[in-house]
């Protein structure tokens, strides 16, 4: 009989990605609906003026380093939350090649994070 005590269990490195997932999930849960409403829906729905979203005004807002950091933090966590959850969902859909899926989704998240950093800080 196959004894579980002979199974090779060892503590995983998952906490690294899971903490990003959990933090990202909380941040997006609190802030994303408002952000979507603000950035993407308020103007077309006539709730806010397009002037508030002019290049110059956004430039002004982003000139504050705290704002830049907050924006980076929120989007960074959001990207990694989505990447990890989508990886797990692929498993639920029956996709067995977990390694490939992980590289794909975390890869996209990495590239996006890089572009984000460049756009904000350089």
């Amino acid at each position, binding site marked *: 009989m196959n004894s*579980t005590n002979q199974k090779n*269990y060892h*503590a995983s490195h998952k906490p690294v990605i899971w903490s990003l997932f*959990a933090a990202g999930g909380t941040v997006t849960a609190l802030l994303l609906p408002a952000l979507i409403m603000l950035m993407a829906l308020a103007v077309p729905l006539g709730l806010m003026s397009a002037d508030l979203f002019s290049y110059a005004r956004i430039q002004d807002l982003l000139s504050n380093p705290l704002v830049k950091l907050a924006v980076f933090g929120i989007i960074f966590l959001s990207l990694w939350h989505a990447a990890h959850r989508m990886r797990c969902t692929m*498993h639920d859909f*029956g996709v067995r090649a977990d390694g490939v899926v992980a590289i794909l989704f975390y890869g996209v998240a990495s590239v996006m994070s890089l572009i984000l950093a460049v756009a904000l800080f350089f």
Partner: protein
Amino acid sequence: MSNPAKARIVQLEIMRYNPDLDQQPHFQSYDVPCQEEWVLLDAINYIKDELDRSLSYRWSCHMAVCGSCGLMVNGVPMLSCHAFIRDMPDLIKVEPMENFPIIRDLVVEMDGFIEKLAAVKPYIHPKEERNIEDGCHNQSPEQLLDFQSLTQCINCMLCYSACPQVALDHDFIGPAAMALAHRYNLDSRDQGRAVRKDVIASNQAIWECTFVGACSEVCPKHVDPAAAIQQAKIAATGDYFKSFLMPWIKKASKDNEGEQP
């Protein structure tokens, strides 16, 4: 006494499988006159007594404390002694618990489950060895409250039948095993968290759970294994970062190396 005139005829479609005779499981139908107060187990006992002696199934206490009589009832994992006929339609599909191999008819093999329970070392690892003269552990009601609901598990395995991750990977250690481990990790008398860590924080344990939550929904004793697993994830994450960022913290594992009898 039961009133035969008030009986409702319920059709039970039961999955049958005889390993000596059958290549595949198949369904067999029985018409059972059910009294209003009956549970599914009563109907199945009626079949065994009056209609078909060959039907095999597990049961014992008939009051949802022994955990023996788990079945799939119209696709939902339930205890047959806890499934009231009056809440069910006239046609009831009865199958053995999902995600387990079938030994015969409604009897499933539980060896894998038992191994998973044993793997989490479900016994008190005390802070230090105690003698009889030291007396008993003391525990306040608040300390008991921390883990009391987790002690209610009757090992009925309904949570394993409900969990889609168990279906996708039979090596997944599963809800009951992790709830049991968490029960001990939360017990103020226990210091065995480090000893359980390798099993609990492995990829076959908490990290395979995606918090579907079906386990807690089917649990007849309201153990809430889903909650236990999420708390375990947070605890394991804390442990992980502590071990990297604060290696100078004396690890409990150093004191608890080796098995406790």
